[in-house]
Every structure is written in C-alpha cells, then in structure tokens.
C-alpha cells in the first residue's frame, strides 16, 4: 500500500482547524439562541466537533510518531513537487478547468445541448478518446438520447 503519513499529517491539521471553527460557531449559536445547553441547536454539532478534534489529534499524533514533524513537511513538499510536474496531474488539472468552465460558465448561459456538446467534444479530445469525427457523432448520440429518454419519457427538466 502507498505510504501517506505526510498526508495524514496535513489532513489532521486541516480537520483540527475545521473542528475548532465549528466549536466556536456552536458556542455562538448557544449564546445567540439562549436557554439551556441541552436544548440549544448548537449542542450536538459542538459534541461532534469536539470528537472530530480529538480523533484528528490522534491521527496527527500518529503521523508524528511514525514520521516526525520535519519529515512530514519534507515528504509533503516532495509529493507536491512531483504532483505539479507529473503529466497525469496536468491532464487532470486541464480536465478540471474544462469541467469548471462547463459547470460555472456554460451551463448557466447556454442551452443544455450546446454547453454539453462543447464539454464532451473538448473532454474526449483531451483524453484522446477517439477522432474528432467520432467524438462529434458520439456527442450527438448522447445529447439526443438524454433529451429523448429523460425529457420525453421521464419528463425530467434538464439544466
């Protein structure tokens, strides 16, 4: 199995911070709403956040015991360096950018068939799936099927 102690180290710190923010928020909820703590909307989340803080601390302690603070940082920096240089991560990042453009820019502005066609053709081209002609044909088939099956048969609205 892949070693990932340095990642446990980073995630445990992130989760400890998240739980601290939630504990403070829950305390604010208790003060805002008033009344007994057992009836407060912040009671259960506070309890859960405390437990998350505790378990994250256990994971943090374990990662330090196995690797030490310095080595965890060095390992994480090394991993990050490799990640930014690898071809796969660059391809994934490009896929992510196309996905973000489709979700945040194309879907709210263009009709579904147009935004989806642009997205599918570009993604299949980046993934080097098939030739451009084939990807256009596949896209037309998929978009047509989605319209036919979901909007006509199931009466489901599309984005």
């Amino acid at each position, binding site marked *: *199995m892949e070693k*990932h102690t340095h*990642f*446990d180290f980073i*995630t445990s710190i992130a*989760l400890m911070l998240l739980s601290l923010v*939630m504990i403070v*928020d829950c305390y604010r*909820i208790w003060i*805002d*709403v008033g009344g*007994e703590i*057992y*009836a407060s*909307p*912040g*009671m*259960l*989340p506070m309890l*859960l*956040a405390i*437990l*998350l803080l505790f*378990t*994250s601390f*256990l*994971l943090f302690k*374990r990662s330090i015991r196995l690797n030490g603070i310095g080595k965890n940082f060095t390992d994480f920096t090394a991993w990050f360096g490799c990640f930014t240089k690898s071809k*796969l991560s660059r*391809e*994934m990042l490009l*896929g992510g950018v196309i*996905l973000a453009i489709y*979700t*945040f820019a194309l*879907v*709210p502005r263009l009709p579904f068939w147009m935004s*989806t066609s642009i*997205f*599918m053709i570009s*993604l*299949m081209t980046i*993934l*080097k*799936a*098939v030739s451009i002609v084939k990807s256009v044909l*596949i896209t037309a088939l*998929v978009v047509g099927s*989605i319209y036919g*099956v*979901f909007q006509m048969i*199931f*009466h*489901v*609205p*599309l*984005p």
Partner: protein
Amino acid sequence: MDFDFGLLYHSFGNVMLDWHVMLMIFIGVTGGITIGALPGLTATMGVALLVPFTFGRPPVESLGMLLGIYCGGMYGGSISAILIRTPGTPAAAATVLEGYPMGQRGEAGRALAMALFASFTGGMIGALIMTFLSPYVAGVALEFSYVEYFALALFGLSVIISISGTSIIKGVMAGLFGLLLSTIGMDPISGFPRFIYGQMDLMEGPAFIPTLIGLFAVAELFSNIEKMGVTEKIQAKIGQYLPSWADIKTSMPNILKSSLIGTTVGAIPGAGGDIAAFVSYAEAKRSSNHPEKFGTGLVEGVAATESANNACSGGAMIPLLSLGVPGDSVTAVLLGAFIVQGLQPGPLLYKEHMDVVYNVFAAMIVANVAMLIVGAVGVRFFARVIGMQKEILIPVIFILSLCGSYAMRQNVFDIYLTIGFGVVGYIMQRYHYPLSPILLALILGPMAEANLRRSMVVSGGDWHILFSRPIAVGLMILGVAFMVASVFNHKRIEKRLAEARLSGSEGTTE
C-alpha cells in the same frame, strides 16, 4: 403485523400485468448488469445516477427499475471478475478467486453460467426472506418512541467501525464529518439556521441526491481518470448460458448456505455484498471435502460468492423497509428514491402505504427472474461491454451525474454541490478515508439528532430518559458490543497481515 398473502398476489398482478413496470424492470436489470460489468462503476453509482430521473413516474415503476439495477449490478460484477480478473463491483471481489482460474482453463462459460444461476437463486432466497420477515420487524418497530429511534440510529452508526476499511480512526473521522454535514441547515426543533453562512440554498441542508451523486459517482469518475488507458480485450469463448445439472447438484448446498449467510450479513446495517461474499467463500472452503483445491478454479467457490452477494440485496432491504435504516450503500441511495416519491421507509410505511411495500416485494422477486433471463440471453453482449473505452464513458457519466443532481430541485446550486462533494470524495478515497460512513451519517444523523433533542426537551434535560426503555437499552448494548467486536476483529486482521508481511520478508531474505 401479519403477512398478507392476498395483497402479495395482487402486487404480482400490478407488476407483471403492467407492461410499463415490466419494461422498467428489464431496462433496470440490463443497465445494472452493464454498470456492474464495467470495472469502476458500481450499483450504488447506477442507482444514484438514475434516482432523480424516476421521480416523474409512479412508485412501482421507478422503484422497480432501481431494484432491477440493484439486482443486475450485483450479478454484473462477476462477469469482469471471471473474464479479466477485475471485479466489476466490490461485491464480486471474492468471485475472482475461483472464477478467473476457471476462465484461464477455458471454462469461462461454465463459470459465468454458475455465477448467473447462483446469483438468481441467492437473490430469490434473499428477496423471499425480505418479503416474509420485514412486516414482522416493522410490527415491532411500530411500538418505538423517540428514545428507541435515537437508540436505533446509534446502533446504525455503530457499524461505522466495521466499514472503516484499513483505518478505524479514519472511518470514525469520516463518520463525524458526515454527522457534522447533516447538522447544516435549519435546526429540526427550533428552526435556527446553522452553518449556512448566508447561502439560502443550504437552509434544508446539503441536498441528499446531489451529495450522493458527488460522493459516489463524480468521485469515482475522478478516480477512473487516473486509471485510464487500460482496456482489456476479452479472449474467452462463452458457449454456455446455464449451468449443467451436475454443477447445480455439486453447488446447491453451498448456494443455499451462502444465500442464508448473505441475507443475514445484508440485514446488518453497513455490511455489504463484499463482506457477505468473503464470509461465504471462507465457509465454503472450511466445509469442503477438498479445501486444498480452493483457489484453483472451483465452481462451488463461484456459486458460494455469487449467491451470497445477491442474497445480500434482499437482506439489506429488510432494515430499510421496516426500520428506515439502510443495510448497505445501495439501499442508502434507494432510501433517497423512496423520499423522492414522497414515501418515508420505516414502520409507518407499512401502515400508510402497505400497497407500495408489497409492490416492492413483488418487483424485487420479478427483478431476479428478469436478471436470469437478461443474463442468459445477453452474456456475450455484457462480456463485450467490458472492453468499452473509459475515455468515452467518463464524459457521458459525468453529464448524467450533473443532469441528475439538477433534476430534483432544478437548482444550479445543486450542480455546484455535486462537483464540490465529488472533489471531497475523490481526495478522501485517494487517501484511504472511507466514504460509506459519511453516507450512513448523513442518513442517520438527522434521525439521531431530532430524537435525542425531543427526548431531552421532554425530560427537561435528564439524560436518564435514554436508558428508561428496555428496547432502547438493548439496542445501545448491541451497538456497543458491535463496536467492540469490530475493533477486536480489526486488530486481529492487522496482526495477521503483519505476520504475513514478516514471513514474506523472511522468505525474501532467505
């Protein structure tokens, strides 16, 4: 609550005499086997993707189709396990052990035929046990008050440890994260908005279906992008569709035993088809007259694992229908399908919508028969599907995921939610944080919180109320016992793994 044979008879009529329902079941089964056969796509993903598209249809049609996907997906996983040594679903992982060596020996057809027959028999036994047992469980649950419901939710949450995978602490952290997510939105008692930070779309909490699609479909797609470029060509010849009488006779005791094991394991919230298949495989090997031959390609091994994982689906439906607590990740998604139809699974479903419950029983049984027919007729087609390029599949499934998350509320915010949870799910999967605890926590969290708070308000903050009713105390003790047993089991497995690693390294040194 007594079983109503007359209503079951009527329900079979509703399902089998309505061509719409039958068509939906057959579409579901065909889609389920296809999804199951494709490595990386699971039945959970298939059901999660299609739930939003079914809400415009009557309950019997939409639930029939989703149950078809469930049954078909469980069997479909065995096809790629046998042909390319890659289980299509986690539940088919144990099938690789005997199925692949059979395929290598030129007996792929025989292995596939047995997998289909065993899946059908296991699925039928599980469905029949579900049909006859769940009304009685629901009858007991009808007596439950706030305190028992809170204890039931705690019991359900206690299984998080057993589904934590390689690290208990990460499983618990995932569960706590899920529970915290379930507290986002309006407080169930006072209506006070929590953790929404001005985002009104979060007032009702993170929408269930977009969250599910994000965690189980989009995250899986991201993981699949990493594993792209590997497409297996199928070499094996498939010339057999049903097993020989001799194979059936040899395997029948294992099929019956494994079906019972599968149903029992399935009925435990959180334990899924993968656990059922491995437990049954171990039992088949233990009770065999020739255990040394296991691993070389024995048809009994395929029969044991496949009957167990399909029986598991019937078992997992028992707690879902009678208690409102899902037995595995697929039934957790099915819970969403019931809610979409305006139905809340649990004991009250038997009081208020008895006809729907019996239609589900009938649809599940019919779906297993449909699986046998579609599986036998289409085995060559499904074997060919395995070779489909992921580069084409990924964009298509991605579009379906986004359409599905939008369809429920017609809100673009849900698409953003799906993408967000997809990224979170991918990172968690990549670094060995299990996802199932989040799902369990999202479902059981609101149930636990609402009933705990009501109990506290009723008792004026006296915690003793939680221990005042025998069934609640029994459920809590059961939960604690389950947690302790899971921790010990986990430690035992870790110890064995460490020993195996040690002996392996000594062997290498020598």
